[in-house]
């Protein structure tokens, strides 16, 4: 300033010049255009570069909020469970390891059976490393995989080793008439899953081994092993005691069929009871193991066979069916080893392995053996039956030949089914249910093996996914409509029931169609008397094509718990917040201007009364308004907007009132009044237009305030929420997502998925900062005297 002053200080006299000597100035129009009020303000506004930048950012945010929800190709409204919880992934920077879409997973339980197995060997992993249970190893970054153990005390299977003590700790007195207290330690069933039975087959010499590491011993304490034969009878047979144990040790029961007086194959459940008079009794039951012998076949020959069956094509001989159980939690799909010592190969002789599951009516063909030797047949390669459900099945061998002299000498049929021999160090105890409050389960020295690794969630989410019940409607939409040109149906050599599609089709393979009996038929509405059929396909999908992405997508903010794109969602939420802010501010400004005008214009008693009223309303804490509207109308858009406007108009009203006091005594108002103008004309035509600039600039700052409150309330759960949608004046439809809602969603996952909180928080912070700067800049520009004061 000082420098400028100096410049104008010593101006020589001759530089001055009279503007006009001969004309009168009021005759002449200004040559320059006068700078209007708004233009002047704009010039002042543009001078502050920081504010200009803030304003540009603000309008960019608004532009994003308007355009992104409309233009986005990613999913922002429906649930896509497959792609949920994807971390942020950014192009370019992903190469240097930031936002690369990988997540570090720790404390994932290791599947012990994978340690040193063929699976890990095939992946090139060292012998001591195991893979995490239930995770597809293709998507693990194997060089980051590490295993570590931690102590555990719970009863889950993965908690391994250690000592288990089941004890009765009943301190209560026995009831009258009872001289023993009995704690029943009951297994839901001995087998690993409720839905399956443990099968005892007389041909496989089942041996039950019971290991008791330690046991309280006195005359009245006994541990009983009970077994119940399960049959179709709705009234099941009672549990029979098969062994009574009084001291620790290993007990082998190999004469189960004699004990039970049973000679056929049966399925069963096992239960353990500990009975004692002592309150200190316990039994440390480590395991109950069941082992089967291998099945040993015999020579079968058409010559020797008594029952010769002559089929349509030739002669058939059927070997007795072998019954077995498959349970995915304990067993891998079995490998059948058939050793054929010699075989007649002259007359189209085939030894056919057939299989029938409990759902099938007839035996299904698995594979033919046409020469002698040892044949390992992995059943899983020939049938799709071995899925995630347990079932019983039976196998048989069939000899088919043209000639009745044909024979095959089968020396053994072995099931490589080793998991069926249940051998565990103690987790079986975990399956026991404690009955009554008096039993306790203690575990010490047990460990659980964990793994930590980096995981490629994107590859996993957009890889191959199996859909067991894929709706037929969707299936036809894809294969015959949307992707008809790329989906070319081809035979699947591995699976005669299904088929596969050419590359580029979202459906890679069809494993099976709905079995006839599972088709749901519902009487048709349109054609009475007929039925609508609902059926589905069991398919393998390529999720990337299915989700209509040409390449792996970039979710730059990640995805939320429902698989929606957080980037789109954030802008959608911002749009909602902005619209609510605009609407509520609009209402507030309207009410405030009308109220302030009346109060300021009329003055006197009216003014005093209205001032007192607005003081009372303004003194109501927001907690009170909140409680009233939530209790009466419930959380939602209506309550939210009402809470925002109930005391929001007061600021505008007081600014308006001040403006009215300033202008209402001016001469032009008096003149107009003298000419007979009505009050409404004076208010709306004369006074208000003069004060409106100040009022509006003061009101601009209300929008960020309203957004501020809206997001806080939504965060607390009193505002809008997911799944809601509402209309404003029947025109604009808003979704229930706002930034507050998004932040509220991420609240519980701040540790594991901080990005769910981070990105919306950053966006709303930028919005609030720039909005406030914009508002302040606007006020400073229109009203320079207020600069910096607030």
């Amino acid at each position, binding site marked *: 300033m000082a420098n400028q002053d100096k410049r104008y200080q010593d101006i020589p006299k001759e530089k001055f010049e009279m503007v006009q000597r001969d004309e009168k100035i009021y005759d002449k129009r200004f040559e320059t255009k006068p700078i209007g009020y708004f233009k002047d303000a704009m010039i002042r506004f543009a001078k502050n570069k920081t504010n200009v930048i803030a304003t540009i950012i603000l309008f960019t945010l608004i532009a994003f909020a308007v355009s992104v929800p409309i233009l986005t190709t990613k999913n922002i409204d429906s649930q896509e469970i497959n792609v949920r919880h994807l971390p942020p992934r950014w192009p370019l920077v992903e190469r240097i390891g930031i936002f690369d879409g990988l997540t570090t997973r720790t404390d994932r339980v290791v599947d012990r059976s994978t340690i040193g197995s063929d699976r890990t060997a095939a992946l090139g992993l060292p012998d001591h490393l195991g893979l995490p249970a239930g995770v597809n190893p293709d998507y693990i970054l194997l060089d980051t995989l590490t295993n570590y153990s931690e102590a555990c005390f719970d009863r889950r299977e993965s908690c391994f080793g250690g000592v288990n003590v089941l004890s009765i700790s009943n301190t209560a007195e026995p009831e009258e008439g009872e001289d023993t207290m009995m704690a029943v330690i009951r297994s839901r069933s001995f087998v690993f899953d409720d839905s399956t039975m443990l099968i005892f087959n007389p041909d496989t010499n089942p041996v039950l081994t019971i290991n008791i590491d330690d046991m309280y011993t006195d005359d009245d304490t006994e541990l009983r092993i009970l077994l119940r034969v399960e049959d179709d009878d709705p009234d099941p047979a009672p549990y029979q005691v098969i062994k009574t144990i009084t001291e620790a040790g290993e007990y082998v029961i190999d004469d189960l069929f004699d004990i039970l007086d049973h000679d056929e194959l049966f399925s069963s459940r096992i239960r353990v009871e500990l009975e004692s008079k002592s309150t200190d009794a316990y039994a440390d039951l480590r395991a109950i193991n069941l082992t089967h012998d291998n099945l040993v076949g015999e020579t079968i020959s058409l010559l020797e066979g008594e029952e010769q069956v002559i089929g349509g094509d030739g002669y058939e001989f059927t070997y007795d069916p072998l019954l077995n159980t498959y349970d995915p939690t304990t067993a891998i799909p079995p490998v059948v080893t058939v050793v054929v010592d010699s075989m007649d190969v002259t007359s189209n002789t085939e030894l056919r392995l057939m299989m029938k599951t409990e759902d099938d009516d007839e035996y299904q063909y698995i594979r033919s053996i046409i020469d002698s030797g040892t044949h390992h047949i992995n059943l899983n390669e020939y049938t799709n039956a071995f899925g995630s459900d347990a079932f019983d099945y039976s196998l048989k061998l069939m000899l088919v030949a043209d000639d009745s002299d044909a024979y095959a000498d089968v020396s053994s049929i072995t099931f490589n089914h080793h998991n069926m021999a249940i051998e565990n160090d103690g987790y079986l105890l975990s399956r026991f249910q404690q009955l009554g409050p008096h039993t306790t389960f203690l575990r010490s020295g047990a460990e659980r093996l964990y793994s930590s690794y980096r995981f490629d969630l994107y590859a996993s989410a957009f890889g191959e996914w199996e859909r067991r019940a894929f709706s037929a409607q969707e299936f036809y939409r894809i294969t015959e409509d949307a992707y008809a040109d790329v989906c070319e149906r081809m035979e699947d050599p591995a699976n005669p029931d299904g088929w596969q599609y050419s590359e580029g089709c979202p459906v890679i393979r069809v494993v099976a169609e709905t079995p006839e009996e599972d088709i749901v038929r519902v009487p048709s509405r349109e054609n009475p008397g007929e039925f609508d059929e609902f059926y589905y396909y069991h398919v393998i999908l390529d999720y990337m094509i299915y989700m209509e992405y040409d390449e792996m997508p970039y979710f730059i903010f990640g995805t939320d718990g429902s698989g929606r794109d957080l980037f789109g969602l954030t802008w959608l939420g911002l749009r909602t917040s902005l619209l609510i802010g605009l609407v509520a501010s609009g209402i507030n400004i309207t009410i405030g201007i009308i109220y302030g005008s009346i109060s300021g214009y009329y003055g006197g008693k009216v003014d005093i009364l209205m001032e007192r009223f607005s003081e009372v309303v303004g*003194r109501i804490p927001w*907690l*009170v308004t909140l409680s009233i509207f939530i*209790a*009466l109308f419930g959380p939602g858009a209506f309550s939210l907007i009402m809470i925002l406007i109930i005391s929001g108009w007061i600021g505008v009203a007081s600014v308006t009132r001040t403006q009215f006091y300033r202008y209402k005594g001016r001469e032009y108002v008096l003149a107009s009044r003298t000419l007979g103008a009505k009050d409404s004309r004076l208010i709306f035509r004369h006074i208000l237009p003069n004060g409106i600039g100040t009022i509006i600039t003061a009101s601009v700052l209300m929008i960020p305030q309203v957004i501020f409150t809206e997001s*806080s309330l939504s965060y*607390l759960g009193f505002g809008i929420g997911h799944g809601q949608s509402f209309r404003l004046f029947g025109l604009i439809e808003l979704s229930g997502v706002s930034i507050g809602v998004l932040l509220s969603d991420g609240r519980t996952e*701040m540790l594991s998925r901080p990005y769910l909180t981070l990105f919306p928080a950053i966006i709303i912070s930028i919005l609030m900062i720039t909005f406030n700067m914009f508002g302040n800049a606007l006020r400073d520009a229109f009203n320079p005297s207020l600069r*910096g004061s607030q």
Partner: protein
Amino acid sequence: MLKYTAIRTVWIFIILWTILSLNFTILRLAPEYPPPTDEEQQIYYRRQVHDGYMTVRVLRADRPQDVEEIEFLSEPVNRESRSHYEIDRRDGEIQSIRIFEPTPISQQYFSWLTNIVTEWNWGLSTRVQVNVPVFEVLRSRIPVTVQLNLIALAFYIPVGFTLGIIAALRKDTILDNLISISVMVMISIPSFVSMLFLVLIFGYQLGWFPTQFPARDITGTIRYTALVLPVLGLSFGAIAGLTRTTRAELTEVLTSEFLLLARTKGLSRPQAVVRHAMRNSMVPLVPGIIFSFVGLLSGSVIIERIYRIPGTGRIFIRAMEPNNYDYNLILGITAFYTIVGLFAVLLVDLSYGIVDPRIRMGARK
């Protein structure tokens, strides 16, 4: 001055009474949520009768004049939704019905007023701590909230002042600009967002402070370290506000003539600033601080929720759980916040006269 104080105090009580009455009346119109179990309801409804919100009458099957009404009420459809019926059945036959009927809201209102004025009885909590008097529930919570807010107050006032003074004295320097920008950032970010950032960075990522408030029975240094994040989260906005007003007021005073005079008299700059400028810029700041305490207090509702602090705010959120409302508790808590807020207003009004004797409130011109 005395007259002014009296008028203001009466006026504050009028506002307080209006707000609480309004709140009471409207909440009585909302659907009721009595305690959940039968046993608790028995206690609750007897207490309601005792407090004058309900009346009770008994219908007996052995009294002939009641038989018709018992017959009528045996159908659940015929029962009033706001009344409560305790039905005594023996062998499937209704022996007696005890009917608890609400008195008219106007009568309830006067009972409520009498209960509070004479017995300080705010009713029983119905959902949060069933059948515990509301004031008992609040008694253990209020100190937590007030303590937290006082610590925040003690923290933000010196910080805000210092920043504001620095900014004013170094006006239009880089330091001033930096402070202005951070003030703008702090004032703009909603307190729950800044609290989330604090917990995310210092709680989870760096692990310096606990990520939530420790339970009541945990002792040790964690009780003190756990205060750091909520105090910071609470005071950000307040610091920003105080800095901005201090800067504005002080700049104005610094350019005024009396300061020039002080300097001309030969006072050094620090002397002039401390003795003359600071004192005069105090006038609008004191009310600002009192108001900001009220702001802090109601703002702490959300901080308490994020950081799981067992204060009044958190209990308010619990009492406001959708379709599980605890009206008596809501009334009690809102009364607490309203009273604190209004007395702050009173204090502000009176403090004007004390801080600046030139201001004569209510004086005739």
